[in-house]
């Protein structure tokens, strides 16, 4: 039987999906706008059914270190928080990355800096994709734009975390966390048995049998030569992730003259912006990075070549725009529009800003397109588009 369509908040979808994935433990500390994740888990009481542990820790720092411990034992573990709480988790995330452990961290962003507001924001882009904690490490980052993706990315996130033994973050914001939409929840799968854990994660600290050496899970290495080798191994892994795990969605990009690049809730807002633009006779496409790291630089470079201009819309003062600019290599003007501190722009506001920033003058009487920049062949473009279809699950 097909799974029933449900109506729920993004935060609730995360909780349901975690239980259904066979998650072993959730450790968290409440903070708006993501408290429904733990609230839903507590209400569903999975410890009575699947045996999953749900624990309210004494702090965010404790929660991420519980995740560190659980992950070190090969368990499927996660935590969630919102911006100020995620700042507290950065040290733990650096340790988890350094010890090469799989873990899922959810950040439902709110306006900052500091305690800021509880309203939606995307101002933690830099923190998430550029490090946050110390050291040369990367966090695979999935940016959901719907409640369905909140549910789906729990599975995708855990799968990636275990594939690469690396922390994965779901980077959402107050809009995606708080809004209700239709969702089809993933099917139930059982929690891994100890035997399965030993097979999946032979490095895990699960008790030493006589026939092997102790498994030591640590990010500490006092010998710099050995530490450099570790780092080189990390970097090799990161290059492989950049090669294989890029995901994005391209909407109406085929014959667009302008491009909007936006992720998460901003991408939803901009979907309506491109409809408005079309009504005024301007062809605007939308590229939505689904993985923020690895970033879809190649796709943006290819698409950028045929555009007259790119607008990057983010709920921040201009963060992802840096990666977009790096991607297009100055081949096309790139401008930014954003609102700050928890204010969310509406689709028309974005369109007005785009017209101003990129000096677009809609002319409904003329359909001639000139000065479209370096052209890209239709075949090349079809290839880009078909590649992304394979990447989007």
């Amino acid at each position, binding site marked *: 039987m097909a799974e029933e*369509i449900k*109506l729920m908040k993004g935060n609730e979808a995360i909780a349901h999906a975690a239980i259904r994935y066979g998650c072993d433990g959730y450790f968290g500390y409440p903070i*708006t*706008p993501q408290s429904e994740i733990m609230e839903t888990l507590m209400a569903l009481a999975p410890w009575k059914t699947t045996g999953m542990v749900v624990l309210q820790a004494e702090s965010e720092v404790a929660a991420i270190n519980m995740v560190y411990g659980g992950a070190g034992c090969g368990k499927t573990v996660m935590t969630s928080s919102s911006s100020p709480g995620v700042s507290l988790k950065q040290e733990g995330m650096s340790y988890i990355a350094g010890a090469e452990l799989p873990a899922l961290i959810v950040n439902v962003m709110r306006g900052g800096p500091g305690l800021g507001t*509880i*309203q939606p924001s995307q101002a933690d882009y830099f923190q998430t994709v550029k490090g946050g904690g110390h050291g040369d490490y990367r966090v695979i980052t999935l940016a959901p734009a719907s409640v369905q993706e909140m549910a789906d990315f729990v599975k995708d996130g855990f799968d990636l975390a275990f594939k690469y033994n690396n922390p994965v973050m779901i980077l959402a914001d*107050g*809009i995606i966390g*708080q*809004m*209700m*939409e*239709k969702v089809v929840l993933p099917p139930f799968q059982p929690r891994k048995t100890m035997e399965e854990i030993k097979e999946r994660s032979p490095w895990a600290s699960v008790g030493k049998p006589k026939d092997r050496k102790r498994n030591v899970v640590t990010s500490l290495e006092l010998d710099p030569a050995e530490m450099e080798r570790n780092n080189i191994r990390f970097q090799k892994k990161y290059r492989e992730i950049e090669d294989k795990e890029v995901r994005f969605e391209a909407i109406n990009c085929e014959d667009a003259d302008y491009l909007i690049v936006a992720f998460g*809730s901003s991408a*939803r*807002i*901009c*979907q*309506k*912006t491109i*409809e408005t633009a079309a009504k005024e006779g301007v062809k605007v496409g939308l590229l939505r990075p689904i993985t923020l790291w690895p970033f879809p630089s190649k796709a943006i470079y290819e698409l950028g070549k045929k555009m007259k201009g790119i607008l990057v819309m983010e709920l921040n003062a201009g963060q992802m725009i840096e990666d977009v600019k790096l991607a297009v290599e100055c081949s096309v003007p790139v401008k930014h529009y954003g609102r700050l501190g928890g204010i*969310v*722009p*509406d*689709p*028309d*506001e974005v369109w007005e800003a785009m017209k101003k920033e990129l000096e677009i003058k809609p002319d409904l009487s003329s359909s001639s397109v000139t000065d479209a920049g370096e052209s890209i062949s239709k075949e090349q473009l079809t290839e880009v588009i078909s590649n992304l279809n394979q990447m989007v699950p």
Partner: protein
Amino acid sequence: MKHEIIIAGFGGQGVLSMGKILAYSGLMEGKEVSWMPSYGPEQRGGTANVTVILSDERISSPVLNEFDIVVVLNQPSMDKFESKVKKGGMLIYDSYGIHQPTQRKDIKVFKVDAMDAATEMQNGKAFNMIVLGALLKIEQLVKLENVIEGLKKSLPERHHKLIPMNEAAIQKGMDIVVEV
């Protein structure tokens, strides 16, 4: 077909629940739905609003700047949202909380004395369902039977005995809404 609706009033009036029931009703009807609350540090007596979109197609932005239908249940919401009704759109208000109705002539304006009716029914909690009835009367967003199904979905089972009362309140709202 797409309806973009905002319901706004005081916290405690049942604004979010009304939106939720509407969203569930849309779900029952097989529509695409989105329910986007204002989730500030809301409290009883503060202002609260919820944007509900019901559509036959995939919904783009859950955040909107103008609406087909605006439901306002207090004066601050009237002041904030009367200008957000699309030209030719509809505005419904409960006269109990509104001292200065809209001056706009390019929209249809409806009045529902829901607070008075709820008092008459001796059931203050019926208030938001009376407003929902009025909303469904002026625009058939969803079929009534799907609203009842939506109620069943959104209410915990222990409250299902209240569904007939809710149905009566919806009927009341349908009966008393008037165009101004």
